[in-house]
């Protein structure tokens, strides 16, 4: 035993040569480990971002690379903020974000609350519920076009079966007032499990002794729900809302495949407008300015929201 300790001490004492081989200091190693990631992000994220900022002040068009680029100052930004179509797109986005978050939070929290009763085989059914959110929104969204087909589609058939409306009248994707809902339904179907999973973690984080104390005080189930369950799960619900809010603000793939922004521009969310301006009209400078505005909006809103979240957490 003593012998081994001595051996360890001997090994721990570095020889002059070993010290040289060790070479890299902790500080050096830290930078060696971190810098590749930072360099990659600078090259693929930050440099393009600055390029986009530069382009946003010009009239550059990516399909005419040889044309002389003119500096426009803030003209692009002024035009965007005065553009009626952009404001309509922002309203469409807000409508989409609001309803998806509302539905997903209500359904997701209810599901989590029910799963928390821990009925038999709840683990299996929970895993099954989680499946849709892992799949590709584009590939699955594309298939929903088939489910939405007025006559042959399963969705229209099921709705007409329940409601008695002839299936040819259920034009989910081509009816102006139904098209936004067709996207909200798919998004809710896909992402409710996400909110549910986070809410479930929130519910399970509430220590049981609080409920036991409430029982001793004879608080009703209703009272327990409103003054224990909901407030204590609130930071988790807010976190889920944050993640879904950011994701749905940038939503592109599902909308692009389901409606492509149509009919007309009724489902044209901000990302679709951006894609049409940037990759169909090739107004690169103009769309860069719009991209910057969007980024600042997400970033700003997220920051304000995180501050509010931290306040709720501290309470």
């Amino acid at each position, binding site marked *: 035993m003593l012998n081994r300790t001595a051996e360890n001490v001997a090994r721990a004492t570095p020889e002059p040569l070993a010290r040289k081989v060790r070479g890299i200091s902790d500080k050096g190693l830290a930078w060696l480990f971190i810098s590749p990631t930072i360099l990659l992000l600078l090259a693929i994220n930050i440099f393009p971002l600055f390029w*986009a900022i530069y382009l946003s002040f010009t009239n550059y068009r990516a399909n005419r690379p040889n044309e002389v680029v003119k500096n426009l100052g803030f003209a692009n930004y002024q035009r965007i903020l005065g553009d009626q179509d952009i404001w309509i797109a922002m309203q469409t986005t807000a409508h989409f974000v609001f309803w998806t978050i509302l539905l997903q939070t209500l359904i997701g929290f209810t599901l989590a609350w029910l799963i928390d009763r821990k009925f038999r085989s709840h683990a299996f059914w929970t895993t099954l519920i989680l499946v849709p959110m892992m799949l590709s929104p584009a590939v699955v969204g594309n298939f929903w076009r088939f489910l939405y087909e007025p006559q*042959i589609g399963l969705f229209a058939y099921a709705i007409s079966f329940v409601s008695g409306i002839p299936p040819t009248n259920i034009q989910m994707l081509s009816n102006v007032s139904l098209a936004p809902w067709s996207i909200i339904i798919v998004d809710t179907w896909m992402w409710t499990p996400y909110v549910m999973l986070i809410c479930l973690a929130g519910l399970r984080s509430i220590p049981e002794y609080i409920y036991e104390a409430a029982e001793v005080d004879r608080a009703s189930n209703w009272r327990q729900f409103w003054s224990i369950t909901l407030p204590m799960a609130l930071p988790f619900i807010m976190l889920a809302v944050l993640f879904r809010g950011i994701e749905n603000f940038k939503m592109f793939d599902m909308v692009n495949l389901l409606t492509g922004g149509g009919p007309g521009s009724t489902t044209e969310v901000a990302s679709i407008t951006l894609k049409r301006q940037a990759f169909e009209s090739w107004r690169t400078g103009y769309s860069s300015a719009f991209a910057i505005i969007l980024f600042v909006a997400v970033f700003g809103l997220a920051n304000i929201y995180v501050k509010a979240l931290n306040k709720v957490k501290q309470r």
Partner: protein
Amino acid sequence: MSLTTAHSVVAPSGASKRIAGAIIIAYALISIVPLLWIFATSFKTPPDSIAYPPKILFQPSLEGYCNLFTTRTRQTPEYINSLGPATSFCDETTRKRNMVIAGPSNFVPRFVNSLIIAFGSTFCAVFLGTLSAYGFSRFKVPLADDLLFFILSTRMMPPIAVAIPIYLMYRELGLSDTALGMILLYTAVNVSLAVWLLKGFIDEIPREYEEAAMIDGYTRLQAFWRTVLPQATTGIAATAIFCLIFAWNEYAFAALLTSGTAQTAPPFIPTIIGEGGQDWPAVAAGTTIFLVPILVFTILLRKQLLRGITFGAVRK
């Protein structure tokens, strides 16, 4: 036996459990119907797939899979009769529709692209992520919080906004429509997730292990390699699967930045068309093949899922 425990939330009563169970099972069953329908449609013939009312019972057929892997041209019955006997099952089904197989479709190359790009970018993201996470976890890095937030904020940008300058940059560098370009881009997007998740996992490994190893004469690098990495394997594996799922499912960048040689499966599958619109059984077949790996991963990951989808914010 007391009345209070029967009503307690701590131990839900039998009746409330049964009702909760019934609602959850109903929701789960309804929510997987679209997926079951994809699976069923992939085994339908094109006429069966567009029948009204939608067919729940049908004669299964592999025609969708044949159509997924081949391209076909319409021919006169005389020409088809003049051909020799059909050499394969797909040959035979195609001829029944007065068509002949013209060649393989693009599905296999697109699927291979998906594999190369998803696995390549996952490897790079996890490699870089592990190193950075260890750096942030163990060393005092100046401005660490700002750097970590900067890494995360790159994930908040709308993909189309990122795609505009990337499109121009890749055009200049000759990276448009190449697997390398897509791997770089996906690595950059995924590395933020990898750093955040792995930092959480590495934070949980006690520093004492490395310190003991270093007292035993290991260098910091050796201690990292021999004590930290083996303990972080679960975390690294979970992170890798999350990166893989993102890269596998990604559509926006792939649709805008690839068009031919480097196109992945998600932008390709919606373009599978037959005569008169989308060939739904073939689309369903492609979708089924595309979704199976993710289903397997979801089941493998279910314990780590929460952590992955919240960037490590919720650990439990």
